[in-house]
C-alpha cells in the first residue's frame, strides 16, 4: 500500500530570496498534474494574502507529486518549498531535516548570494545530495558561466551538471524532474520497526483543527493509531492521515520514508512541539530523534492599540496569529503613555513588520509599534544577579547597574566591488569588527561582527540602498558582550515618550539622538504652538530641535451653506487625529514611531 522506499524522493527547494523557488515549485506541480491549468496561479503555494502581495514565501509548504520517470516507473516526490528571507531561516532548517536532498536554485542574473550560501551549508550539514539549478536563464542579464563558476568557487560544489531552467517559461523542468529521481537518493528506514516520526511543523486550520506535518523515519503511522509525543509523553488518537497535492488527499497510512500530514483532535498548536518525536503509544521506539534547535525571538517591540478599547481584541488576535506562528512571543505590558498593550518578540524586522501588517489588515486593528529592541543582559550592582531587559522603559537606575551586555552577530555580506567602500563605512559606523574580506569574481565577501542592536533598526534597508539592491546579507548570533550602553530618552514638548526610548552605545548616542530629533521634526505635524523635541541621557539633553508653530490654517469664506461642508472637514480632521497618539498636548502620528528610527543617509 505504501510506496516502496526506492520509489520515494524527498527534497527541499532552497535559494536566496526571489531566485524563483516558488515559481519552480509551480512548474513541478503543473507538469506532474497536481493541479489543472485552471487551478494554477502564480506561486500557488504562497497562499497567505501577505505572501501573494509581497511576492515572498513566509511559510514552508510541502506537496506530494507523482512522477513517471524515463525508466517507466512511477515515483512519489515530496517537494518542500522554503522561504528565502533570513528571518525565516528556521523554516528552511526544519524542511531540510525531513529530506534527503535539495534543489539549490540560483538566479542566473544575480548569482550566489548570502542566503544561497547559508542555506546550502545547512543542507550540506544534513549530508544532502544537492542539485544546482540555474534559473531565470530567459533573462537578458543571465550569465550562466559566471554563475557556474561562482557555485564552484564560492560554494565549492561541482556545477558542470547544473540544470538550466526558466521556471517562468517552463524551460528545463523535465530535466529537473529526472534529476530528482536520478540524483537525489531515496530515503532509508525500517518499516517493521516501532513508529518513529519527526514532527516537522504544525499549524491551525479552521476546518481541520491542528494539522501536523510529519516525516516517518521508522515504522508506519496509521489512521486510528494511538500515538505519543515523546517530549511531554502526551497521547493522541490519529483521526486523519493525508498528504497535500497541494489539495488534501486522504490516505490510510504513512510508512517510513514518507512525508504527510495527520490530525489527532488536538486543540492548540502549543500542544505540539516542532522537532518532537512521535511514536506508537503501545510499542514506543527506544530512542527519540535529536530534535531541532529552538528558535528564539531576537527583536522585541511593544504593540499597543490606538484605541484603548481594542486591547481585548488585540490579545485575541495575537492568540489567533500565534496558532499558526509559534515563532513569535507576546506578554502583556503597560506604559504610562500608551496604556495597555503587549511586548512581542520576533525573529527579525521583516517578521515584525509582517505580524504588524497582518494584525492591521486581517484583524482590523490600529496599532502603535514602539522602537524595536534586542534583549540585554544586565548585571546588577552589589551582586544582585542578572536580569534580562526586553524593554528600554524597564531599564534600572544606572546606580543599580554593574554592567550591561548586548547580543552580537556574525554577518556575512556579499557586495559588488563598487559599493564595498560605502558598505565598510556602514559596518564601521555600526560598531562592526571586520573579520574577513575576500574577493570572488567582481564581488567581495565580508564577514563582520556587529552588535545586534545596530542591525535591528534599518541595517538591512541601508545595505540595500547603499548597494542599489545588490548586496546580500546573512547572520547568526554569536553571544553576548559587554558594552558601554545607555538609555536615551526622547522628550516631545518636555514629555518623555516611552515608546521612543532606546538603549544605545554611548559613542553613537549623540548622532542617533540628533537623527531622531531631526526626523521627528519632520514627522510630527505642526501644532498650534511650537514644540521642542529633545534627546536626553539621564536628564542631560544631547540633541534638540524645535517644531515651529502652525502659521496659517483658516477657511477664508464661510457662510450659511458652508456650515455643512466645514463640519465635514472638521469631522475628518478629528478622524485623522485618532491615528495619532497624544503626549501631553502633542499628537504624534502612529507612523512616526517606526519612521523615526530609520537612520536616513548619514547612517
Amino acid at each position, binding site marked *: 500500500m505504501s510506496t516502496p522506499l526506492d520509489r520515494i524522493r524527498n527534497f527541499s527547494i532552497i535559494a536566496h530570496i526571489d531566485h524563483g523557488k516558488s515559481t519552480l515549485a509551480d512548474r513541478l506541480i503543473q507538469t506532474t498534474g497536481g493541479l489543472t491549468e485552471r487551478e494554477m496561479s502564480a506561486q500557488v503555494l504562497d497562499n497567505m494574502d501577505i505572501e501573494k502581495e509581497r511576492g515572498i514565501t513566509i511559510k514552508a509548504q510541502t506537496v506530494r507529486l507523482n512522477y513517471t520517470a524515463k525508466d517507466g516507473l512511477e515515483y512519489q516526490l515530496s517537494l518542500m518549498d522554503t522561504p528565502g528571507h533570513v528571518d525565516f531561516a528556521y523554516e528552511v532548517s526544519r524542511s531540510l531535516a525531513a529530506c534527503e536532498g535539495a534543489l539549490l536554485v540560483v538566479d542566473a542574473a544575480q548569482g550566489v548570494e548570502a542566503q544561497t550560501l547559508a542555506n546550502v551549508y545547512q543542507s550540506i550539514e544534513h549530508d544532502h545530495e544537492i542539485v544546482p539549478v540555474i534559473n531565470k536563464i530567459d533573462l537578458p542579464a543571465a550569465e550562466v558561466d559566471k554563475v557556474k563558476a561562482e557555485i564552484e568557487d564560492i560554494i565549492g560544489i561541482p556545477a558542470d551538471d547544473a540544470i538550466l531552467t526558466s521556471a517562468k517559461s517552463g524551460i528545463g523542468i523535465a530535466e529537473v524532474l529526472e534529476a530528482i529521481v536520478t540524483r537525489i537518493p531515496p530515503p532509508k528506514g525500517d518499516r517493521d520497526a516501532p513508529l518513529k516520526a519527526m514532527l516537522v511543523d504544525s499549524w491551525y486550520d479552521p476546518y481541520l483543527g491542528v494539522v501536523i506535518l510529519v516525516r516517518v523515519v521508522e515504522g508506519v503511522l496509521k489512521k486510528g493509531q494511538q500515538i505519543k509525543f515523546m517530549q511531554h509523553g502526551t497521547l493522541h488518537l490519529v483521526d486523519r492521515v493525508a498528504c497535500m497535492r497541494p489539495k488534501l488527499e486522504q490516505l490510510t497510512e504513512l510508512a517510513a520514508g514518507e512525508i504527510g500530514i495527520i490530525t489527532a483532535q488536538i486543540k492548540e498548536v502549543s500542544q505540539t512541539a516542532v522537532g518532537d518525536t512521535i511514536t506508537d503509544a503501545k510499542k514506543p521506539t527506544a530512542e527519540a530523534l535529536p530534535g531541532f534547535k529552538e528558535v528564539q525571538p531576537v527583536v522585541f517591540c511593544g504593540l499597543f492599540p490606538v484605541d484603548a478599547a481594542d486591547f481585548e481584541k488585540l490579545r485575541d488576535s495575537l492568540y489567533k496569529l500565534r496558532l499558526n506562528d509559534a515563532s513569535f512571543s507576546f506578554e502583556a505590558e503597560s506604559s504610562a503613555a500608551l496604556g495597555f498593550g503587549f511586548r512581542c518578540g520576533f525573529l527579525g524586522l521583516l517578521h515584525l513588520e509582517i505580524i504588524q501588517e497582518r494584525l492591521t489588515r486581517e484583524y482590523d486593528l490600529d496599532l502603535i509599534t514602539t522602537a524595536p529592541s534586542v534583549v540585554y543582559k544586565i548585571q546588577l550592582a552589589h551582586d544582585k544577579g542578572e536580569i534580562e531587559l526586553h524593554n528600554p522603559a524597564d531599564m534600572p537606575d544606572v546606580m543599580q547597574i554593574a554592567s550591561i551586555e548586548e547580543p552580537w552577530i556574525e554577518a556575512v555580506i556579499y557586495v559588488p566591488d563598487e559599493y564595498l567602500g560605502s558598505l565598510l563605512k556602514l559596518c564601521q559606523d555600526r560598531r562592526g569588527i571586520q573579520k574577513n574580506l575576500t574577493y570572488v569574481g567582481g564581488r567581495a565577501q565580508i564577514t563582520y561582527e556587529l552588535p545586534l542592536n545596530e542591525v535591528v533598526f534599518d541595517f538591512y534597508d541601508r545595505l540595500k540602498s547603499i548597494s542599489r539592491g545588490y548586496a546580500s546579507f546573512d547572520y547568526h548570533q554569536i553571544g553576548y558582550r559587554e558594552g558601554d550602553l545607555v538609555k536615551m530618552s526622547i522628550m516631545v514638548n518636555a514629555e518623555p515618550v516611552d515608546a521612543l526610548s532606546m538603549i544605545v552605545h554611548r559613542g553613537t548616542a549623540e548622532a542617533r539622538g540628533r537623527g531622531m530629533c531631526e526626523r521627528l521634526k519632520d514627522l510630527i505635524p505642526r501644532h*498650534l*504652538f511650537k514644540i521642542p523635541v529633545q534627546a536626553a541621557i539621564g536628564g542631560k539633553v544631547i540633541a534638540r530641535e524645535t517644531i515651529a508653530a502652525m*502659521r496659517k490654517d*483658516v477657511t477664508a*469664506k*464661510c*457662510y450659511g451653506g458652508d456650515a455643512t461642508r466645514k*463640519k465635514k472637514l472638521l469631522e475628518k480632521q478629528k478622524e485623522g487625529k485618532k491615528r495619532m497618539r497624544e503626549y501631553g498636548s502633542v499628537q504624534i502620528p502612529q507612523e512616526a514611531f517606526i519612521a523615526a528610527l530609520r537612520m536616513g543617509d548619514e547612517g
Partner: protein
Amino acid sequence: MRASDLDLCRDPSPQSGEEEPLALYVHWPFCVSKCPYCDFNSHVRAEIDETAWRDALLADLAHEAELTPGRPLGSIFFGGGTPSLMAPATVAAVLGAAERHWGFASDIEITLEANPSSVEAAKFGALAKAGINRVSLGLQALDDAALRFLGRAHDVAESLAALDIAQAAFARVSLDLIYARPDQTETSWRAELDRALRFGTEHLSLYQLTIEPGTHFAALAGKGRLPTLDIDTAANLFELTRAVTAAAGIPAYEISNHARPGAESRHNLAYWRYRDYLGVGPGAHGRRGGLATVRRKKPENWLAAVARNGHGLESETPLDPATRAMEALLMGLRLGEGVDLAALSGRLGLPIDEMVDARAIDELTGHGLIVRERDRLTVREPGMLVLDGILGEIVR
C-alpha cells in the same frame, strides 16, 4: 447710532424663538461667465425664462413661509451666481411676496450681490426702488492684470464707475476684494487696500484666494501650472489686513469681514450667530428649527422639483444637539465677539463640556490663542490665523 446697532454687537439671545427675526437667502444661480476660482453654485446659460424662474422662486418662498409663521424677516440676501443680472421686476416680486408672507422688521437689511459692470450698474436705481437697501459689490481687485487673472469681465475703471453709482443709489455698500494672489507682496496689497479704504464704504469683505476643489484653478494647480503664494506671505498679508483696517476704523468683526461699528452685515451675522435662516432657490441651505434644509442644486433640477412638488427641497435633516453645537462653534468663533457658551448650552440643551473640550481650552488659552471670560469664548488676534486648527482641538 440706532438701537438695533447695539443689538448687533451684543448677540441678543431672544427669550422665545417666535419673536426672533428670520434671515432669508435667495439664490440666483446664473453668471455671464464662470470665474476660475469660483466653486459657488453658478452656471452659464444662453437662455433664461425669467418668468418661470420668478414663479418658481415665489413658490419655493411660499413653502418656507408656511412652515415659519409669525416671525418677521430681519434680513434678506440675494446671492449667487450673479443676482444683479435679475430683472428688477423679479426682485420686486420676490420682495413683495416676502413682505406679504412674513412682514418686515422695521430696520430690515436687504442685500444684493452685484458685479461692477456697466450693464448692471445701469440697473442699480431700479433695484433700489425695488427695495434693495444694501449691495455687496464684487470688485475683487484694483488692478487690471489681477482682474484678468481672476477671469473677471470688468476692468478697474468700469468697477469704480459702478461703485460711484452704487454709493449714490444704495444706503449701504460693501465691497469684495480677493487678496493673497500669487504675485502679491505686502507693499502692493497695502497700496491696494489703502485705496479701497479711501472709497469710504462702511463694509469690506477681504478674502484670501483659496484654491477650491473642482475649479479651473484647482485643475491648473493639479498640473503644477498655477503659481501660489507661500504660506508665510499669506499669513503676513492677513495680519497686515487686520492691522490696517482696524487703524482705519473699519476693523474685522469676522475672519474676512470688516465694518464700521454698527455696519456689520446683519444677514451674515445670522449665519455666524447660528440663528435660523431660510434658503430658497437652487442649492440654497437653511436652518429651520433644528432642521438642515437643502435645495436641489442644479438649476434645471430645482426648477423641475418646484414644478412637481411646489418647493425645491432635496432634504430636510434633523440635526442633533451635538451637531448643532459644532456648527454654532465653527461659525461663531469666526466672529470677534466669539460665542456665549452658556447661552448656546441653554439654547441647545447640551452641557458646555459636551460642546467643547475644557482641557484643550485651557491649553490654548495658555498659548494666548483664545480667551474665555466667564461664559464667552473668544479667539484672540493671533488665533484667528489658525482658527481651523483651534476648532479641531476644542470642538467636541
